[in-house]
């Protein structure tokens, strides 16, 4: 079983909700990324999502768009992102790291070359926002060969038929998009998420993590009763943006924010 599978299983047996923070690699600059990842772990993160900046982030709201633009402005490319993962791995061989991005970044490197480089860097999972299961066959194959999970998204609009197809193609966990919208949207409804989650559970045995629009401990807590984990992205990225280039302030602020959510989840 992959590091993701093992981690989620261990959390499940401890009845602990997985907390998965997201940051964009290279925002505000590359040197900030590894200290930020370490701070997230210190604050209580169980898995990490690291965004691969892309010029056309069509599924992201304003906060993550801006973060992606900042990372691109200082020249962050996929190889740099993998470099961050390798550096993080040198000091932490426990916490799973999941890359999140858009397909073109992977295609430009080549699926096979990407899989090999991701393995070498210590990546555990990959989420490609614009890759539904139908189109995922070749990347899934390339990643499976090196034991990296391709994590698929399920949406509020996914039919039952699609949810089973997603289950068949997914590995690691299923990422349930909480709402109809982009990352950072502010119209999450816990009741609706729980309905969609219950429907998804009838199609999959895999753990289900919920993301999009989770901005605070209270929402995380409310979702954590049913979900195996929660992903918090735009709220973290916005907090980083508010600190500007202040390299020392970022880790402290991230650790503080994540531990607040952690406490809410564990209360």
């Amino acid at each position, binding site marked *: 079983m992959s590091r993701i599978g093992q981690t989620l299983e261990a959390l499940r047996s401890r009845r602990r909700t997985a907390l998965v923070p997201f940051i964009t690699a290279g925002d505000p600059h590359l040197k900030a990324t590894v200290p930020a990842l370490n701070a997230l772990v210190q604050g209580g993160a169980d898995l990490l999502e690291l965004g691969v900046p892309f*010029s056309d982030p069509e*599924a992201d709201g304003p906060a993550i768009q801006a973060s992606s633009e900042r990372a691109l402005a200082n020249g962050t490319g996929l190889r740099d992102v993998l470099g961050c993962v390798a550096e993080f791995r040198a000091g932490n061989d426990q916490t799973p790291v999941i890359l999140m991005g858009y397909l*073109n970044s992977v295609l*430009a490197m080549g699926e096979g070359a990407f899989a090999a480089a991701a393995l070498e860097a210590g990546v555990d999972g990959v989420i490609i926002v*614009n890759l539904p299961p139908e189109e995922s066959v070749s990347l899934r194959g390339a990643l499976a060969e090196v034991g990296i999970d391709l994590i698929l998204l399920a949406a509020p609009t996914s039919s039952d038929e*699609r949810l089973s197809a997603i289950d068949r193609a997914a590995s690691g966990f299923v990422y349930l998009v909480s709402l109809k919208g982009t990352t950072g949207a502010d119209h999450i409804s816990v009741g609706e998420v729980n309905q969609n989650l219950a429907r998804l559970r009838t199609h999959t045995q895999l753990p289900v993590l919920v993301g999009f629009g989770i901005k605070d401990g209270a929402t995380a807590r409310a979702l954590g009763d049913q979900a195996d984990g929660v992903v918090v992205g735009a709220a973290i990225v916005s907090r980083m943006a508010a600190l500007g280039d202040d390299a020392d302030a970022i880790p402290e602020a991230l650790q503080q924010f994540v531990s607040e959510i952690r406490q809410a989840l564990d209360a």
Partner: protein
Amino acid sequence: MPQPGSNYAQPSQDGHFGQHGGRFVAETLIHALDELEALYEQAKADPEFQAEFAEDLARFVGRPSPLYFAKRLTERLGGPQIYLKREDLNHTGAHKINNCIGQALLARRMGKPRVIAETGAGQHGVATATVAARFGLECQVYMGAVDIARQALNVYRMKLLGASVVPVHSGSKTLKDALNEALRDWVTHVDDTHYIIGTVAGPHPYPMLVRDFQSVIGQEARSQCLQQMGRLPDALVACVGGGSNALGLFHPFIDDEAVRLVGVEAAGLGLETGRHAAPLNDGQVGVLHGNKTYLMQDADGQISDTHSVSAGLDYPGVGPEHSHLKDIGRAEYDAVTDEEALAAFRLLNQTEGIMPALESSHAVAWVVREAPQFDAGQIVVINLSGRGDKDIQTVADLDGTTL
């Protein structure tokens, strides 16, 4: 349409044109695409839908558009016999309206009260706002902040038509970013909103249905050629931005293998400068805006900023079916520079009394350049995709003339 018995059956069931096309979007949108595809298949087979479409094309758009013999241009160039397919004479001044009528009818059938669109130059935005008014739909148009500044007239025109125009400040603030923002709107309002994509790009079924709606251009041109000249033309020439006017003209001739299909991209300041919008001439295969196709991108897969004097061609991608037609060699794709297009713009004004859009001027410019390669007996049809009134300000600025 390809004729019965055609070997050319694209796209495949799952929306691919060879290695191109497909559906690379967030899972949330797949349901809406499935729904659109099912409804479109039903509408296509429904004589009532086809009759409604034909009726509006005739009485609202003003079709058929003439196939006009450009006698003085022909004499001036001393090459082939040149005919112009006059899409510039359509209501709203370009081919874009053909697709908008079709998609507004689909929105109505789906019971969706709101439509959204992306626009670069504003032509597709104006056409969408027009059909929204015609069918009583709420309309929101996304437009890059840079384009809003350089296309003030069309922005105001959309507002007069009752649409709201939303400036897009992300990325390069141009057409590709407007498309991103329209996709974000759609994913958020997918229950009550239909997204009217303006060209043969995007996720399946868009490249197919936009092509089908635009194929009226080629269907008319084919029968006009047979009627007026008693034979098929030797070549069809059209500009390629996303590729909808080109595919609309080409598609009904796909099986007529003796007919050359020539798509003309924007070479901007020159292909060698990298400052252009010609992914079929100088791009690599990648995935953007829901489909796999040739794109302008850097080694890291970031989409490049493009340049063309013509806002409607200023796009880093191209419809996936063109990428396929290039791969199989059925169509050829060349490019002309800003300068060549501007010269052709002036030439057509002065030889024929027709002011082409700067987009369409690229097709004219290719014929100007390549005329010596043709015999006098050969027939070339140029798709005059739109009229140039919208570009007068741009041309005057380049001239240094203050209006």
